[in-house]
């Protein structure tokens, strides 16, 4: 009791543990909670509506034809075969171009760059900013590049791959840097103290430990590239393709472009086709994101 008296003497108002202003169940707290729920509800409602409408509209055309047939003027005969192949070709090219380059750039910035040098800090800042540049700008950049080199035709697989690789490069750099940074410095020091060179340390310790993070970041970046249409439209990607791409120099279309083109047609049948192709694209994206989450959880290092 003596201590209680002392507390009171010190001006401590609370001599009971009962809440003074409603605590967890005050009107403000409840109101705020409802505001959060409402925001969540709006977001989920829109997503849900979009998915349900797309599935209902696209279901009749979501058949084998979609995978086996080329585009056609008759919606009943048309399919997205060329777009599916085109997307696979372009995304594969993008991955081959962007992943090694992004990982190498991130490794340099994290492990070798002297951060006291202003140019290294400038590069870092720019990489961060590049991730926020609108995708169409990368289309323009690629267009300019190809024109300078002297290409007349710009709608081939490699060009699309370059544009998308430029688009996702900053994302891969940032993800890889995060992965490298999460490797404890004890590992680095242990390796160097055993007479390993910095290069051997990166190659034998840092990068192998960073693979899950790099894979997760790369897959998420590629799934973004898979859904992009703007830079490819700028390069003049074809909308009516009746052949499979066969090489890096083949003309191509991709799924988002095919969807875009079908949506613009007057016939109802094409709208259904667009919805069906959208379902396919959504399923692909869900699979890729699921894979990324799986890798992240499965290989998460507990240091």
């Amino acid at each position, binding site marked *: 009791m003596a201590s209680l008296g002392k507390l009171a003497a010190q001006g401590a108002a609370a001599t009971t543990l009962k809440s003074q202003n409603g605590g967890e169940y005050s009107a403000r707290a409840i109101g705020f909670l409802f505001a959060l729920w409402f925001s969540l509800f709006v977001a989920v409602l829109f997503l849900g509506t979009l998915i349900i409408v797309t599935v209902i509209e696209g279901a009749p055309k979501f058949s084998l034809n979609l995978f086996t047939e080329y585009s056609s003027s008759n919606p009943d005969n048309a399919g997205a075969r060329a777009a599916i192949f085109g997307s696979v070709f372009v995304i594969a090219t993008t991955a081959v171009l962007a992943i090694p380059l992004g990982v190498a750039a991130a490794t340099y910035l994290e492990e070798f760059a*002297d951060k*006291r040098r202003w140019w290294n800090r400038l590069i870092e800042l720019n990489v961060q900013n590049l991730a926020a540049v609108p995708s169409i700008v990368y289309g323009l950049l690629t267009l300019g590049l190809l024109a300078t080199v002297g290409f007349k035709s710009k709608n081939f697989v490699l060009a699309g791959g370059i544009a998308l690789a430029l688009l996702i490069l900053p994302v891969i750099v940032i993800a890889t840097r995060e992965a490298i940074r999460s490797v404890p410095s*004890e590992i680095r020091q242990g390796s160097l*103290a*055993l*007479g390993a060179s910095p290069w051997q340390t990166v190659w*034998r310790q840092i990068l192998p430990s960073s693979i899950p993070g790099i894979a997760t970041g790369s897959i998420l970046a590629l799934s973004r590239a898979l859904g992009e249409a703007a830079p490819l439209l700028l390069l003049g990607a074809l909308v009516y393709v009746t052949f499979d791409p066969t090489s890096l120099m083949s003309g191509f279309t991709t799924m988002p472009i095919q969807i875009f083109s079908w949506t613009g047609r007057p016939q109802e049948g094409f709208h259904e086709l667009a919805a069906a192709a959208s379902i396919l694209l959504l399923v692909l994206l869900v699979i890729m994101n699921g894979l990324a989450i799986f890798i992240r959880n499965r290989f998460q290092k507990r240091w």
Partner: protein
Amino acid sequence: METNSPDQPASSATVRPTPSDVALPDQPDAVLTCDNVDVYYGSFKAVEQVNLGFGLNEITALIGPSGCGKSTLLRSLNRMNDLVEGARVAGTVSFMNEDIYGPGVDAIEVRRRIGMVFQKPNPFPKSIYDNIAYGARVTGMKVSSMDDLVEEALTRAALWDEVKDKLKQSAYGLSGGQQQRLCIARTIAIKPDVILMDEPCSALDPIATMRIEDLMQELRKDYTIVIVTHNMQQAARVADRTAFFTALPDETTGNRTGVLVEYGKTGQIFGAPNDKRTEDYISGRFG
């Protein structure tokens, strides 16, 4: 193994002189020497004017309160401080009469000859076998049989019997004490001349600490060991010679710079220190 609690100061009566004190020459036969060594981080001077020789096949302990620069000095002995941006060494650190910061000296070669064991056990996320073989692989060491090298290193680190049936398993499955002995084994495997230990037992329980201390006595026959420790009893138990550091505040900036106060045979430092500050520290009056 904490025989002395903090309120029971280590007096000369409780510290037995190490047996080797008797046979120990007055001046160490130094393999590694510091001449007027200052260590800077940028413009901040962390350690000032250290003159020390680490004797061949001796264990030298660096003791002193936190922030006295003993770990900083240790890391400058095998150029691990090179990894810290802005770190710089003035004066001369020589290994077998060769300046390790001299022109043309390869820091990687320095670290191969002067190994290091860290405060926290830091096994690589690899198998026990690969942890030991790592150093030999990266340095391109000529080995007739990697299996023999692994067995020899683990045996010398008194770990072989505990792990011989699980060499291919992850090193992360070992206990903290075993991991630290693995790190010592890994260091021995590349056959260095000097082993630097940065508070190697601070993350371990007393039993594991005792095993590491026993191991150090064994290793001393073939290696020169420098150990940084916060534990004075540990220094008294294992070290042949002890160097006591303290931190002096700069009059103008207030930055604390580490200085070497006293260096001598362990029995003398703990039994009859010459400097008042050493006496105060070892009897628990500060630090």
